């Protein structure tokens, strides 16, 4: 018995040494397990598919070698500093349910023994999942939840790469202000009284209700009048009384924070009710999904959405173009805000693991707090990724930024998003006022 024990110890020792001596060799390969929690079914299933495809593509690039992509993770097979360990994704479906999300996180941590977590898109779910991660000291990176409150809780195991709604909402008001000052490409200065009246309708979970609050806050700050503001259930099957209420407010500018099926329903109902505001703006999410475009067709021409990624970015950034080509090959769609950010989230995970050189939570924590990824390595048009480690926003990426796009019909007759804000990177003249449905 003892000799067997000794023999196996010897074999283990040799194997371990082989691993140390040949860090990229096949013998040293192990896995790093990342639990990925997304809404894969339910109203946001379309978004879930995009998120999943983004993460899978990034994993494929990280686990293989694509020398022509100018990003660190494409140069090595697996995590170099972990002996070429491959990333293994374990997907879970939270169905938009915060309680389920928390249960899944526990399951991933206790049963699957994941090294870290990525997710969860819905701010409400991210909130509960990050609380579980904090409890078990498991690092979590969030790439696409934009409720400002998430990074205001002083969590030590939570990092967020995406900019949040406060920045995005401010962008919108900067755009409106720009309209009155004649700064918008292709639009003469608009008298403020023509766009002074606002109305907002936001879905009523964590994310939407925060956006609604931010709109109120900024409307006051920028001197606009909010004539109507309400929350609705994203699962509503009918929004006609909501739309009548918006119309009744005689608002010049209508603002929305909606997930996919409700965004489509909202615009369909606006169209059926012949609503005619001068500006329609959506806070990303549903307003940017491929389904939004494919279901509603030409009628969305002129609608604005804030976003973090537009196909036009591809023309500005070579790397984005390359990744977009890979993504299109995989899914048939262009990268969107959800997929590009999910991609970036996994990329950040790889960079953090690379820097940590270990899967010990404490090492990952230290690495995440010290990480810096330059903007040129990212598909999203940010200055880079660097997390805040002090102040009231712990773990928030401080180098992100947003875009506002407008659906426009191109010469080829196809609807695509053109950049209208920031003004210095506009890709087309803005359509103003909204021409009606």
């Amino acid at each position, binding site marked *: 018995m003892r000799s067997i024990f000794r023999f196996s110890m010897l074999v283990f020792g040799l194997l371990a040494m082989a691993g140390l001596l040949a860090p990229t060799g096949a013998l040293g390969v192990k896995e790093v397990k990342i639990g990925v929690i997304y809404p894969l079914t339910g109203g946001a299933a379309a978004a879930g598919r995009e998120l999943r495809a983004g993460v899978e593509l990034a994993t494929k690039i990280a686990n293989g070698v694509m020398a022509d992509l100018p990003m660190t993770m494409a140069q090595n097979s697996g995590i170099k500093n972990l002996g070429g360990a491959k990333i293994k994704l374990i997907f879970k479906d939270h169905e938009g349910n915060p309680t389920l999300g928390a249960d899944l996180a526990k399951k991933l941590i206790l049963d699957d023994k994941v090294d870290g977590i990525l997710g969860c898109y819905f701010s409400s779910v991210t909130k509960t999942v990050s609380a579980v991660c904090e409890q078990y000291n498991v690092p979590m990176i969030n790439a696409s939840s934009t409720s400002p409150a998430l990074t205001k809780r002083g969590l030590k195991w939570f990092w967020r790469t995406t900019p949040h709604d406060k920045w995005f909402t401010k962008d919108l008001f900067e755009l409106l202000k720009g309209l009155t000052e004649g700064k918008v490409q292709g639009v003469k200065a608009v008298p403020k009284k023509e766009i002074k009246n606002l109305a907002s309708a936001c879905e009523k979970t964590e994310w939407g209700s925060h956006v609604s609050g931010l709109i109120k806050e900024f409307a006051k700050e920028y001197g606009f009048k909010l004539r109507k503001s309400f929350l609705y259930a994203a699962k509503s099957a009918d929004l006609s*009384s909501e739309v009548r*209420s918006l119309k009744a407010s005689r608002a010049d500018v209508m603002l929305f924070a909606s997930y996919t099926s409700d965004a489509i329903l909202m615009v369909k109902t606006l169209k059926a009710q012949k609503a005619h505001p001068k500006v329609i703006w959506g806070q990303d999410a549903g307003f940017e999904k491929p389904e939004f475009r494919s279901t509603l067709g030409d009628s969305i021409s002129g609608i604005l959405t804030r976003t973090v990624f537009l196909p036009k970015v591809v023309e500005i950034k070579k790397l984005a173009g390359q990744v977009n080509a890979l993504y299109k090959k995989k899914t048939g769609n262009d990268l969107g805000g959800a997929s590009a950010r999910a991609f970036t989230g996994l990329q950040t995970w790889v960079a953090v693991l690379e820097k940590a050189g270990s899967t010990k939570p404490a090492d990952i924590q230290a690495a995440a707090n010290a990480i810096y990824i330059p903007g040129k390595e990212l598909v999203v048009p940010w200055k880079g990724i660097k997390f805040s480690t002090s102040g009231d926003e712990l773990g928030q990426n401080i180098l992100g930024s947003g875009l506002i796009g407008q659906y426009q019909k191109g010469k080829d007759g196809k609807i695509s998003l053109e950049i209208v804000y920031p003004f210095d990177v506009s890709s087309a003249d803005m359509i103003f006022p909204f021409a009606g449905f």
Partner: protein
Amino acid sequence: MDILVGSLFAGLLIGMVLALVALGLTIIFGVMDIVNFAHGEFLMIGMYTGLLTAQGLGIDPLLTLPVAAIVGFLLGIICYFGFIKFLLRGPMVAQLLGTFGLMLFLRNLALLIFGSEDRALHHGLLVGKSFDLGMGVIVSATKLACATLSVVAFVAVWLLINRTKIGKALTATALNAQGARYMGIPTEKMNALAWGIGGGSVTIAGALIVNFWSVNPFIGLLFTMIAFAIVALGGFGSVPGAFFAGLVVGMITEIPGFWDFFTYTFGADWMVDIPMTSFKYMWVYVAFFVIMVTRPRGLFGWKQ
């Protein structure tokens, strides 16, 4: 002013649609004294039937109504002979829990088959169309069609119950099942017929509603609750009561619209900040509660 007229119209139309949803529930209750918790699930099945038939066969959703009616009628009869018949022997609580179980069963079956995603019709003769009645009042074509059909269905059911022999037999069964049996009325068949008509009318409503409302396996509960409120308001078992109460409930769901009218007419800023739209269904249950407390048999109810 357009806000007020618009809300009135919208309330009336949706009220007629909701009345159609409640019709089946009131028939089943009227005849058998059994409260069908799975009513909303029947509606959900009607919605899926309409949606899938239209998409599968590539026909206009309006043409799927007969299919939905047959599916609903058969479903009602199958449910009766396969399940409800046995429940009737048990106490009231067993009947309640039984239909509650049926609700859970149908819902989860739908979840298994269709998945939890919202599905909606995007194409169709009337889908997304609307009329401008002037004064800024816009009426959706699907809702108008739905409301019209609802009236037709009500008249048909009313005629069936009040002008035909079968109707008399149904009423007799409803009033006194034992007596009716002694008179030679096949009460068993009458019960099954009530379930068939109830199921058929609600699946028709579903196939109509799917023209403007998206469907998922959980949609039933909202309608069950509203249908209960309507039936309680109109009086359990009363067909005209269900219609009238449907209109009332339709108007109640439009309270936010009336609120907007007063807000902007009087320019009352404090009213703007009250999110009435978020509470539109709350008032339905408030009305339900008030009726339950003050007049338990409802406005037109004849059953004690």
